[in-house]
């Protein structure tokens, strides 16, 4: 974590330096203390907790005791008490320090105070009053410590989110912008969208420096999404100092159109008896490359996949590219469609599968006329034919008997 040290204290106060007493020949020597301060975090949100560290440095560099005009002066800075006074907008939650003691020449003392920005605190720089009471040869000190309140939140910019998507997988880039005057830490982005798969669900961004941005990417998978307008919600979680904050940003409308990213074209169905061969081309009309693409026949009632191609492995299929495939199956008569399973992995490595059906053409269905539908007519025709033939045979035998009888009589 990069922490800019803001040294607000510019005053180096000479509390009592070589104060000349208007007595001829008398010299008074007193300790010199330098005050610097630093707040953490550098800017607070309303309701944030933070700390203010006040550093007191004894600027004397020589011995502890100084002889001057046959007098001995103590160069230790004696601090009786130190306190920080809150304002209407910033509360100091510590009581302050008392009986602190001595700061030797060249030594530094850090005094840390807990502060809390009130809910109603307005943005801007607020001053806390630092009061120091000195002892012995030390004078008292009052000092104003600046504290910055900043209510500007993290912003997200969806830089390449398309306004509409088909049932595909797309990579979306988001800029996490920190408009604040201090860094934010442990930034985690959690994108989500109803009826849309987003990978990964949490993205660690880390520290975003003040006035800067970090870019992250995630994949939006709308393969199984229903058509309609969607909005991606991004929850940003981060720390300002030790204060946890969240911010939710909603994207513009994302219109999902019902059209698969992998489409089948040039489908041809050939059969020899019950053995069918389905061939065609599979096209990637999406925005991203697809991996592990495989087309298979779904074994179902009346359909049994067979060699040589129960499945056809294509592998990687780049965007705006296509590949041919071939499948083999035994199909029972009366089957009107052959279901196909298309499996693939997108840029998010997530396994996705879609089903498509290849309809058998009308020519084949005319061959496979339903026997039951034509049965009554068929039976009628056959009965008429049987009656006619057996009638002829019967008639011929009747004639034969009649002829034999006639011959017998003659």
């Amino acid at each position: 974590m990069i922490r800019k040290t803001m040294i607000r204290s510019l005053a180096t106060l000479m509390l009592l330096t070589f104060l000349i007493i208007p007595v001829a020949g008398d010299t008074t020597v007193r300790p010199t203390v330098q005050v610097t301060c630093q707040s953490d975090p550098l800017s607070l949100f309303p309701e944030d907790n933070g700390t203010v560290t006040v550093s007191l440095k004894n600027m004397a560099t020589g011995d502890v005791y100084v002889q001057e005009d046959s007098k001995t002066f103590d160069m230790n800075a004696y601090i009786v008490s130190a306190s920080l006074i809150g304002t209407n907008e910033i509360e100091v939650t510590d009581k302050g320090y008392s009986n602190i003691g001595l700061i030797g020449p060249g030594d530094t003392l850090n005094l840390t105070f807990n502060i809390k920005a009130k809910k109603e605190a307005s943005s801007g720089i607020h001053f806390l009053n630092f009061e120091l009471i000195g002892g012995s040869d030390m004078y008292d000190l009052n000092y104003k410590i600046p504290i910055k309140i900043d209510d500007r939140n993290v912003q997200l910019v969806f830089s390449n989110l398309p306004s509409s998507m088909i049932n595909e997988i797309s990579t979306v880039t988001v800029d996490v912008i920190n408009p604040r005057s201090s860094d934010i830490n442990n930034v985690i982005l959690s994108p989500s969208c109803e009826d849309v798969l987003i990978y990964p669900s949490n993205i660690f961004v880390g520290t975003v420096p003040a006035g800067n941005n970090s870019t992250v990417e995630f994949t939006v998978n709308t393969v199984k999404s229903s058509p309609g307008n969607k909005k991606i919600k991004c929850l940003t979680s981060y720390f300002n100092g030790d204060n946890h904050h969240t911010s939710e940003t909603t994207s513009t409308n994302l219109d999902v159109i019902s059209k698969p990213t992998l489409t089948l074209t040039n489908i041809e169905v050939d059969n020899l008896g019950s053995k069918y061969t389905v061939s065609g081309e599979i096209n990637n009309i999406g925005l991203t490359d697809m991996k592990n693409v495989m087309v298979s026949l779904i074994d179902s009632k009346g359909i049994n996949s067979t060699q040589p191609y129960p499945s056809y492995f294509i592998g990687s299929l780049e965007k705006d590219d296509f590949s041919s495939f071939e499948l083999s199956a035994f199909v029972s008569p009366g089957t009107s469609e052959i279901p196909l399973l298309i499996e693939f992995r997108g840029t998010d490595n997530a396994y996705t599968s879609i089903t498509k059906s290849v309809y058998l053409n009308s020519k084949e269905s005319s061959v496979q006329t339903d026997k039951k539908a034509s049965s009554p007519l068929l039976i009628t025709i056959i009965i008429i034919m049987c009656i006619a033939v057996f009638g002829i045979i019967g008639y011929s035998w009747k004639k034969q008997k009649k002829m034999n009888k006639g011959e017998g009589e003659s």
Partner: protein
Amino acid sequence: MKDLLFNPNLFFSEKSKNEVSFKYPILLVLIYSVISIGSSILMMNKMKGILPLDGNSFISTAVTLGSVIGGFFGAFLYWIILAGIFYFISFLFNSNGSFKRTLEFVGYGFAPQILGAIANLFVMYYLLPSVPISSQSPQLFAESFKQALANNPFSFAAETFAILCFLLSANIWVFALVHARNMSTKNAILTIGVPVGLTLIYQVYSLIGGLT
């Protein structure tokens, strides 16, 4: 000719008074063979797609010609063999009569089968274009053709009609043998019954087998 179908007894008794003449039997078998050849040509044209001819027109013509000649001689061979079988079986019943006469009369029996062959030709003509074909395997083509036949009611009716025509032929052959071989009606029925019965059993079995 009307008597051949409706009163074969009278037809053959009249014919037996005349000299043996193959004019009409040959004509009937010829018509039967031509119609059968028509069916064969339709089938061969369809099968050209799956035969490894590689567009060789000479082999293609040879195959068509072969099927024509084969069909032509096949019909006549069928006639002679059938007459031979009838002659041989009737021989067991101490019958007398020349083979020539038997051959002549058996030939008349092909008249109803001409109708059956016409029905078969129609079925081929209408059904073959709808049988899917690809250049993979003749066995699979046979399977798909069988399937198409089994699933088509038109084909089923035609097959039944062919069986009934064969029954009419059998009826004619009974009276043909009575007069050609001078045997009793009962013996003629037995003579015809054995080969015809076997053929009928096979045909009916094929028909029912296709349905199931």
